[in-house]
């Protein structure tokens, strides 16, 4: 944390009348902005990437008018959404109606506080950071439920009911899938989990926990309401689900939250199963040393990009699941399988198979 | 510094708010259940405050079990409530006085 200490010293020295509390609050605010602004830029260009990738998959060009090769398209979208009118439905509960997008985006950003992007690049190093992610992530469901409730409209309510049951069911699956990681790493601290995967690409947990990784990825699709599990907003069934009535910036905030969650889930998959900031060439003679100068942040983002691409890939490939099929997948397929795999992992841990335990 | 009695007085206030809630919402089972949750939160705060100030983790273990039992209680309570609404069309607590069906 040498970098942060330098900033802290700079602030406390330049403004000497600050006492400890005020200085630390300012440091925390600077850190938060240093995280949120790149995150929001990533979200903006992720939407651009989505439209381009799906465009090429469907033999189209995607956005290509605003700026060179359409690079300014996300900016244009953002400006358009900001200047649009925010419409309030008749008899909508105005306070809850405005609270819903806030409740959607607040946990989506708060979760990032404990995500380690490099060995010493994080805002907080909580002892129970994995539990913190699960807990704060579970608050996101309130945004969708309240949006459906406060809109005073049929389709949002249906979408909200669908999403509430889906999110709660798949949280259990994600929890059980991550229990296996915790069993192997012996810690619920994300930094410790990544450190436990040190060694080489074979030390990462994707080999012993390959089925869990698949289940985690599919559950992450459901948690973020992505195709093919986007029954919450399924256009062809319930118009636009929870955000039928939302317009302008309130609508955009829901999408910011959704894309921030997608990036989060991709990075979480990297931390849990793909060795976090460790280089894939680690432990390989010559090549490992050749790549040793690359910062961990680059590896995390490079690995996460694959998962983010997989999100778009899946969206362009599969037709939408029916609601009862998704529920069946969770309770009758994933949950028994993850519980069974917990026993397998317990056995592997006892017998000390492979380099992971 | 915050002393032990500050936490205890706070949790006794919360306990009493939960109690008043049970008195004034006695016809609505959903709010009754929520008031019970509030009372349990007050009790749990007591346990944790004692555990922290006495340096004994047994209090936190107790809270862990209380959380478990309370979650089970809510699940079954809401199931009964749904059943009651389905059979009687109301969740008014007065209708539970009739024993038939």
């Amino acid at each position, binding site marked *: 944390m040498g970098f942060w200490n330098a900033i802290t010293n700079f602030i406390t020295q330049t403004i000497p009348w600050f006492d400890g*509390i005020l200085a630390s609050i300012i440091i925390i605010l600077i850190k938060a902005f240093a995280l949120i602004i790149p995150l929001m830029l990533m979200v903006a260009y992720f939407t651009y990437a989505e439209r381009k990738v799906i465009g090429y998959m469907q033999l189209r060009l995607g956005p290509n008018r605003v700026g060179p090769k359409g690079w300014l398209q996300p900016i244009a979208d953002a400006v358009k959404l900001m200047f649009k009118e925010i419409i309030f439905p008749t008899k909508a509960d105005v306070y*809850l109606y405005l609270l819903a997008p806030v409740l959607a985006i607040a946990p989506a950003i708060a979760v990032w506080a404990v995500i380690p992007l490099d060995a010493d690049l994080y805002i907080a190093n909580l*002892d*129970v950071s994995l*539990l913190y992610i*699960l807990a*704060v992530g*579970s*608050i996101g*469901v309130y945004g969708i439920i309240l949006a459906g*409730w406060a809109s005073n409209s049929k389709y949002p309510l249906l979408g909200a*009911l669908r999403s*509430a049951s889906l999110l*709660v069911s798949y*949280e259990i699956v994600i929890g059980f899938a991550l229990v296996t990681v915790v069993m192997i790493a012996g810690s619920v601290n994300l930094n410790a989990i990544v450190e436990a995967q040190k060694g080489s690409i074979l030390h990462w947990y994707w080999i012993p926990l390959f089925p869990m990784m698949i289940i985690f990825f599919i559950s992450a699709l459901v948690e973020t309401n992505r195709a093919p599990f986007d029954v919450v907003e399924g256009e062809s069934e319930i118009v636009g689900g929870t955000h039928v009535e939302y317009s302008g910036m309130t609508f955009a905030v829901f999408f910011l939250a959704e894309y921030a969650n997608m990036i989060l889930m991709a990075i979480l998959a990297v931390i849990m199963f793909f060795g976090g900031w460790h280089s894939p060439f680690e432990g390989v003679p010559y090549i490992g040393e050749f790549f040793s100068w690359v910062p961990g942040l680059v590896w995390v983002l490079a690995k996460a990009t694959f998962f983010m691409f997989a999100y778009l890939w899946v969206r362009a490939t599969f037709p939408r699941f029916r609601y009862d099929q998704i529920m069946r997948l969770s309770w009758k397929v994933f949950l028994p399988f993850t519980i069974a795999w917990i026993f397998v992992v317990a056995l592997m841990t006892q017998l000390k198979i492979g380099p992971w335990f | 510094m915050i*002393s032990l*009695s500050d936490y*205890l*007085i*706070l949790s*006794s*206030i919360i306990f*009493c708010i939960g*109690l*008043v*809630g*049970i*008195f*004034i*919402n*006695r016809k*609505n089972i*959903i709010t009754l*259940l929520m008031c019970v*949750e*509030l009372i349990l*939160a007050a009790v*749990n*705060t007591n346990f*944790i405050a004692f555990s*922290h*100030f006495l340096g004994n*983790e*047994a209090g*936190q273990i107790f*809270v862990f*079990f209380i*959380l*478990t039992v309370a*979650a*089970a*209680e809510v*699940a*079954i309570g*809401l*199931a009964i409530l*749904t059943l009651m609404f389905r059979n009687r069309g*109301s*969740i*008014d607590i007065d209708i539970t006085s009739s024993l038939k069906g």
Partner: protein
Amino acid sequence: MTSAQILFYTFSFFLVASSLIMIFAKNAAKAVLFLVLAFFSVAGLWILLEAEFLAITLILVYVGAVMVLFLFVIKMLNIDKSTLRAKFAGYLPLGLIVAAIIVAEMTMVLGHEQFGLNIYPAPEKASADYSNITILALQLYTDYVYPFELAAVLLLIAIIAAIALVHRPEQNRKKQDISEQVSVRAKDRLRIVSIAKNNKEVNND
């Protein structure tokens, strides 16, 4: 005022205010939301007491699951608000009297004379390598392993009981039978009739 005191009084204020709003709320959904705020404040207080595992469990279990269940039930049931508030005023004085007596008694018992700083001094702040979850886990899996197993069984019973209570046997449910759908032949569904050539005759029918 230290930062811990500022936090304590902020959380306490939000806790008391949101629980008061909760018990007087007319709308059950709003009551749930204020209870959520109350739980957040309680979790903050628990973190001040260095019980971060339980604080996060409270958010995870209560805010993330139990309160969602409450909201879900409130939305599913069409509750008539007016009848539920009918006797509101009648019970308020009695409740207030009981509450006032309890608060007075508790404050007398729990006041600074009995439980003050002189008797139980605030413990030292835990060191940076103190791990609340490790200590709790060590206790749970050694001394309290039987209660722990019993709690797990209790939760299982609760799951089964809740499902058994609300589950309705299938009646009039429309289900797809895929093999039946696949084995359909055209002649089962389609009848080819020859229509008379004379249009007038058809129209008269």
